[in-house]
């Protein structure tokens, strides 16, 4: 073969490629645990069934930290993956750093705007264009209870934090640990944000933890929140330091503790252990009104090859397809991001979650979770978590805490 025929052949291949339409996707994600891996496999099968080539790039560990490090290395070397599991403001942050692909055609063809709650759709857009596809909605502000313990002591699921405190004192007096909690800073942050929502209401939550309004951060309401955090600290068993969230869930399951404040991934633990909602355990929104969401999604990097672009379009339409949303969320314990998926196969907690999401979306109390990276960028969310966890694990006064909170937020801007 001489040089000319090599050139001719390669040109022919390059010209033929678009016509062949061979969608490929290299997918970077951190869904590596049992139920999550099964859920990804579903997507992978559907992708292959549509004639696509899927290259799996799972990066385990660290709640996505390791995956983000891998992503940074890939992007820096100019070799970004086709699709990446990204969520919340990180999507817009990456968009500003490197640009993300526009998947608006897929979104418009499939009418995403009509089936997604407006607040959630907003997270998937970069400067007005669609750049990510949502997979699920986790509700963060759940409180889980051990049915047997609650019945035994005649306790209803609390609807205000005062009721919670009263219930906790009853339990404490009876020698039961009222609240199962793990000593990791994100878990402190999770409890904190539900208290902010419960005591301050949705509007205050928006001002304080989304808009970072200094007045809200140093307000009396915020002081009351820290007072409540101090009370909660007293209802946690002494060995909570460094405990994982699923071990805390197990405490509720085994009757060692009465309540846990945790997102609906805790339900996966209950269900996996063969417990039934309403019979063995009870779920209720945390005291107060509102819905804190944590939405997993996939973002698409700007790539030049036609194969990769086809892969992105196919992946985006599959992710938002009703079938995948149904199967995936049954496995994961969350609810579909689409509001038009039938929930007959889902459990009662998921049904309630879905009903609340629709209602709260209308009343404006559907809010992004700060503790799970939906409301703020990493540096700001981290600065708030530092203060929350420092307060929770020491005897810092509420006055000092709000001052530190305001300083930390200003410092992270």
């Amino acid at each position, binding site marked *: 073969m001489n040089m000319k025929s090599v050139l001719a052949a390669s040109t022919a291949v390059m010209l033929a490629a678009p016509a062949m339409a061979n969608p490929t996707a290299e997918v970077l994600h951190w869904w590596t645990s049992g139920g999550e891996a099964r859920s990804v496999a579903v997507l992978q099968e559907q992708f292959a069934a549509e004639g696509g080539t899927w290259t799996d790039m799972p990066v385990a560990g*660290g709640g996505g*930290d390791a995956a*983000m*490090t891998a992503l*940074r290395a890939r*992007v*820096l070397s100019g070799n970004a993956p086709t699709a990446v599991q990204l969520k919340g403001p*990180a999507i817009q*942050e*990456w968009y500003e*750093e*490197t640009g993300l692909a526009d998947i608006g055609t897929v979104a418009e063809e499939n009418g995403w705007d009509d089936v997604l709650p407006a607040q959630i759709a907003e997270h998937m857009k970069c400067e007005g264009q669609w750049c990510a596809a949502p997979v699920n909605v986790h509700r963060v502000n759940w409180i889980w209870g051990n049915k047997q313990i609650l019945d035994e002591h005649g306790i209803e699921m609390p609807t205000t934090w005062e009721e919670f405190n009263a219930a906790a004192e009853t339990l404490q007096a009876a020698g039961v640990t009222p609240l199962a909690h793990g*000593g*990791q*800073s994100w878990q*402190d942050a999770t409890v904190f944000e539900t208290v902010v929502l419960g005591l301050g209401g949705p509007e205050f939550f928006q001002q304080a933890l989304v808009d970072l309004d200094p007045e809200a951060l140093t307000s009396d309401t915020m002081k009351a929140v820290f007072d409540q955090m101090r009370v909660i600290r007293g209802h946690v068993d*002494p*060995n*909570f*330091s*460094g405990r994982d969230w699923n071990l805390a869930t197990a405490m509720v399951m085994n009757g060692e503790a009465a309540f846990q404040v945790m997102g609906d991934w805790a339900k996966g633990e209950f269900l996996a252990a063969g417990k039934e909602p309403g019979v063995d355990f009870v779920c209720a929104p945390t005291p107060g009104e509102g819905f804190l969401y944590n939405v997993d999604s996939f973002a698409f990097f700007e790539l030049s090859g036609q194969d990769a672009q086809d892969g992105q379009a196919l992946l985006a339409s599959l992710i938002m397809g009703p079938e995948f949303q149904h199967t995936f969320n049954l496995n994961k314990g969350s609810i579909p991001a689409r509001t038009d998926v039938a929930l007959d196969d889902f459990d009662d907690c998921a049904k309630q979650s879905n009903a609340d999401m629709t209602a709260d979306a209308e009343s404006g109390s559907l809010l992004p979770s700060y503790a799970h990276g939906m409301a703020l*960028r*990493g*540096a700001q*969310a*981290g*600065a708030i978590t*530092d203060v929350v*966890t*420092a*307060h*929770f*694990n*020491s005897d810092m006064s509420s006055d000092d805490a709000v001052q*530190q909170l305001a*300083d*930390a937020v200003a*410092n*992270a801007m």
Partner: protein
Amino acid sequence: MEWLERNVPKLVLAPSFVAIMVFVYGFIAWTAWISLTRSRLMPRYELDGFSQYERLFAAPRWDVAMNNLFIFGGLFIVISMAIGLFLAIFLDQKIRAEGVLRTIYLYPMALSLIVTGTAWKWILNPGLGIQEAIRGWGWESFTFDWLIRPEMAIYTIVLAAVWQASGFVMALFLAGLRSVDTEIIRAAQVDGIPTHRIYSAIIIPTMAPIFLSAFIVLAHLAIKAFDLVIALTGGGPGYATDLPATYMYAMAFSRGDLGQAASSAMVMMGVIFAIVVPYLYSELRPRNDK
């Protein structure tokens, strides 16, 4: 040919020299540059002055990390050297089974710090370890819950690190003790000088260079301490056991705050220089006293 003979050493050293220039000093310079920018998720190269350092020094968490470094570093070095020295002196008494004992003491150094950290996490957990065991034996009021008390947690890290390193220090000192000229010791013994005086007045002073080496090794272990903290406390309770290295990791890899991470790395390097430069100076200066 003659040219080759003269230049072979340079040629052989060139690749590693270049590699070190790029991968050590080049990246130090790069980090210094990044620490002067507003880099967040990805490196950016527009200079922005010292704002990252201002942010760093305003962060309460960095104060805690630096305080912890001095508490941990100070206690770790002093206690490891003291225990190491005593173990070495005891082993030096021509006892039987010295080889076995030496191996036993040195063995912890062979363990990964992650293993040490995880094991001590269980041992120190009030609900699982020492406290629970002693309460189980009947001493109900016994309390040893440093691990979960923010003001004491840093000392649990000292405990685990000393356990890990003192055997190694012992080995260093033992080698030093053995290298002291036996003639001098004999002479002292003949003169009827008591053993403790021989150690304090003759042997230990001649071991000064070994003390310095042990100090340098321990000091850099203390400053780069990371895995032990991650495994033992995860930086908690709260961020009470944060060290500069864990702070830097959190900023760079979980928070998307590269500029902040770079500035903390530069400050850490400053601390190391403050220790190493005087050492290098004392080692490398031309000796006029001979």
